[in-house]
């Protein structure tokens, strides 16, 4: 018995040492990844003060990315009307992927199908790798992911990474917006329009206290509502 106990202890110690070594390695390689400094990091600004709620962005997204009916990568949510006639107004806010720097969807995905593209900082989905466990959908605090009824894979906004961006064009929503309420660009480039707008305006991001570091900024319009 003494002998077997000792053997058991030895085995356990070896296992624990191995496990902690593996975690250590994983952390080291993770911090190396973080150090790699890509020169492109895309972000989007939705200027609510300019948005007129025409939903041209929604339509353009659906066409460009072949998003089936019944699901959407991008929604403009309307609240209101606020104020007294004739000074009534609506409030529009954009609901779509925030391209979190520390993305819960990527962290929970068992296969790595949800991933951050290292070159661009875009959070994307590899539809082939996705098994449809829906863990990412549950994990996303912004509730913008869905299962694509055609591919049966998780789907969401990817800044048109596979469509317009790949062809060197602006994302479909940005190109379609008649009032230039959407500004897309590279955060790492100090001369880009997105950086200029961010420097010149107070902006907000949603649920930052979760530590997700989202890259969808909004210039907030007056909301017409007093909420406490």
């Amino acid at each position, binding site marked *: 018995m003494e002998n077997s106990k000792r053997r058991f202890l030895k085995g356990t110690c070896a296992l624990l040492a191995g496990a902690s070594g593996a975690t250590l390695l994983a952390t080291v390689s993770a911090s190396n990844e973080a150090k790699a400094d890509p020169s492109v990091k895309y972000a989007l600004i939705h200027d609510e003060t300019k948005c007129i709620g025409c939903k041209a962005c929604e339509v353009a997204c659906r066409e460009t990315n072949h998003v089936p009916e019944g699901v959407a990568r991008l929604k403009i949510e309307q609240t209101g009307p606020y104020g007294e006639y004739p000074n009534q107004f609506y409030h529009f806010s954009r609901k779509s992927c925030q391209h979190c720097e520390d993305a*819960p969807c990527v962290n929970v995905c068992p296969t790595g199908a949800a991933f951050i593209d290292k070159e661009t900082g875009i959070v994307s989905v590899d539809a082939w790798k996705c098994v449809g466990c829906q863990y990412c959908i*549950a994990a996303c605090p912004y509730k913008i992911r869905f299962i694509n009824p055609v591919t*049966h894979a998780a789907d969401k906004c990817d800044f048109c990474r596979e469509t317009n961006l790949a062809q060197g064009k602006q994302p479909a929503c940005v190109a379609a917006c008649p009032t230039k309420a959407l500004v897309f660009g590279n955060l790492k480039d100090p001369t880009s329009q997105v950086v200029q707008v961010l420097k010149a305006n107070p902006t907000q991001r949603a649920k930052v206290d979760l530590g997700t570091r989202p890259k969808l900024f909004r210039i907030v319009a007056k909301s017409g509502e007093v909420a406490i």
Partner: protein
Amino acid sequence: MSALHFDTLVWHWPIAIYLFLAGASAGAMFFAVLLKHFVLKHNAYQSGFVQAACIVAPVAVMAGLGILVLDLTKPFDFWKILVFYNPKSVMSMGVLILLIYQVFMFMWIGLLFRKPIDAWCESRFPIVLKFTAWLSRFEATITGLLVIFSLALGAYTGFLLSALPGYPMLKNPVLPLLFLASGLSSGAASSLLGGVLLNANPNAKEVHFIHKVEIPLILVEIVLIFTFFMGLVLSGGQSKFAAFNAIGYGFWGWIFWIGIVGLGLSGPLAMNLFMTATSKRKWAYVAGTACLSLIGVLLLRNFILYTGQMTVV
């Protein structure tokens, strides 16, 4: 908002059943090891309760995996979970734990039944004897690792949900402990129920032992549930809202107070104390108590899964 269908609901009851089965399997193995080492020693395989645990554990864990696979939107692609791993993903690590757990589970069960297996194979497949002899050299290691992995599996069922940052009620450090404790007690209950169904003596020393462990286990569960909700209430904001929404008036409130606190925890606690105090362990008492525990744990899984997804940050 209806209790079973709402916008923010992503994971439905199959996931709760999967969590229940994985926990019950881990608990059954855990108690089988305890019974063998502290109560029965060498002839453990003859005990109906240990036999029941050895049936429940593999069946439950495989049924759970089956449910998990069927619940995927692409069930035929499930092999990708086994091929691609993400060390940051609780689910990915959980699948790994589940697989390793099963390996040690089968090795341990094989060693447990070594005598009958050896006797049966002696003339037919003598090669098997060499294998079991070789395996038995590592018996202590296998047992130790099986215990570690069964505890890990039990805790994993909670970590799976507590890794969801968007739901304040689920993102709770007490959840893995709570699910571990309730998983263990569902394992104990299923061994007891299976044992008496296999015609084992309801007044056997195994039952005494399990009851002795189960009483403190249920008390721990009650403390953990209290801590769980107290923590939510004291965090304020959406956490507090989620807690009151869950245990307040409504469908899930009834499930919680009547089903989980009443039938699932107080019932078995009272029955266990009664059976220990009076030493009356009848077939119906043991089976009934075990059924109550199992129902309670199953309800707890569904309750946490559904009410947890009701409130988002």
